[in-house]
């Protein structure tokens, strides 16, 4: 974990316009929860669309996608990654620094929003459960998207396919695909910490934790290996 790389990455991420485009999402989440609570204090009807439909299905993956692909993808695209790579810093430290920034920013944004939503919907404990789920799954998502940035030249599209089609469409249709869906891990973890009628966990907690760890570690290792064999593309290619 390299502090210089982390600070430059954080500055690059937070200064970009693409990051600002995302802030409406958590605001929408909290705002909607607050509005709904005002109209109907009993969350049993509207709780699930807000927490699971918007929170875990849209806000968490989308923010993780933009941040996770942004920490490395932008530098690869414009070629400034060479300034980091042409140094003796271990590739592992580079990846860990980027992962820390991506997971940190994603967690900060999503966990805060989900905590506030949880407090509005239920109790502080519920909010805490949602936030913890965000923390764990931010790390998993960030590792996956970081690895995707190094595997392909269109990581955002592939990430969108994963979130929309694999987690979204197929996750609703095929029970088996849920095992590989980070969204479901988040729901399971939150439901375990603070059981609530709003959340319908489809996986057991041990499985969710194990798979989250697998995605996080697997994605990180894959990213480190790809970075070791990174090939620069010249202007003409």
């Amino acid at each position, binding site marked *: 974990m390299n502090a210089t790389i982390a600070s430059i990455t954080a500055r690059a991420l937070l200064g970009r316009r693409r990051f600002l485009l995302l802030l409406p999402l958590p605001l929408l989440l909290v705002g909607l929860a607050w509005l709904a609570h005002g109209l109907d204090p009993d969350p049993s009807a509207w709780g699930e669309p807000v927490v699971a439909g918007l929170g875990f299905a849209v806000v968490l993956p989308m923010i993780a996608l933009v941040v996770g692909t942004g920490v490395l993808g932008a530098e690869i695209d414009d070629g400034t990654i060479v300034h980091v790579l042409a*140094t003796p*810093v271990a590739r592992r430290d580079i990846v860990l620094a980027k992962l820390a920034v991506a997971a940190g920013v994603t967690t900060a944004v999503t966990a805060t929003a989900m905590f506030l939503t949880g407090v509005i919907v239920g109790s502080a404990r519920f909010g805490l459960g949602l936030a913890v789920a965000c923390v764990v799954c931010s790390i998993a998502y960030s590792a996956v998207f970081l690895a995707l940035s190094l595997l392909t030249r269109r990581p955002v599209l592939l990430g969108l396919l994963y979130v929309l089609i694999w987690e979204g469409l197929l996750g609703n249709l095929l029970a088996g695909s849920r095992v590989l869906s980070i969204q479901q891990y988040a729901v399971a973890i939150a439901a375990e910490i603070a059981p609530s009628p709003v959340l319908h966990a489809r996986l057991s907690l041990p499985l969710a934790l194990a798979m989250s760890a697998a995605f996080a570690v697997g994605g990180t290792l894959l990213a480190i290996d790809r970075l070791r064999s990174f090939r620069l593309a010249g202007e003409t290619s």
Partner: protein
Amino acid sequence: MPPSTGTVELHGVSRWYGNVVAVNDVSMTLGPGVTGLLGPNGAGKTTLLQMMAGFLPPSRGELTVAGRPSWRNPEIYRVLGLVADREAVPGFLTAWQFVLASARLHELPDPERATERALGQMELHDAWHRRLGTYSKGMRQRARVAAALVHQPTVLLLDEPFNGMDPRQRLHMMDLLHRTADAGAIVLFSSHILEEVEQVSGTVQVMVAGRLATSGDYRSIRRLMTHRPHVFAIRSSDDRRLAVALMAEPAVAGVDIGQSGLTVRAGDYGTFARTLPRIVQRERIRVRQVTPSDESLESVFAYLVAQ
């Protein structure tokens, strides 16, 4: 500057992408001093530099920098500095922050001192507090070179470093490269412009279509080029009389009389350049136009390859 810890050695290095061979069986040994890698666009210079810098593995052959291969070897960057051909820099950083970050990433014991020195060498001490996004192209180039020099590498690779530099900046950069090399470093830069390589006091490696066409110092290449027959198109007030007079000269290899003038093949460029005015004055012929044909860089390189 520590003495050079070795050389850059290539033995039979090739690199291909499917059916396209970018670098074809290149062998060379680079020692201390400035070497120019010259060649037309698409000759494989960038590919060769990327392989030397550890960003591309050779498809075949051996490539070592200071005795160790550069592919998958981050430790090599303690002694190697690269200025890549991509111009982009993080625009939101100032030059100071950019070079300082490089110094820190190279784990230097005194990053601030090194940054100050590198920025001074590249004449950026007036503007180091401004963001790179506000820099001109030449200044950005210099900032990148400063970041590559900050750890005083013994091997410095520069990919088309003179792109976008005006002649004064070019002279200054060349001077800097020579000073770095005089202290014992191996400096290799690539270019496709002959004039940029003129001031190189070391060797010139010429690459054409992936192959190493010729190596040597610039003067010997120049000499090779003067022995190449030059073709001129001449229009004058009396072509036939001029043709007769030119045929008598030993420097002239052949003359063709055509509708639009004479086509003269001269064996020795320098001698012909001195002979023509003498003949014209003696014969009292008015010359309207003298155009050297066949001066394209590619034809020069092609000629060199054929040697």
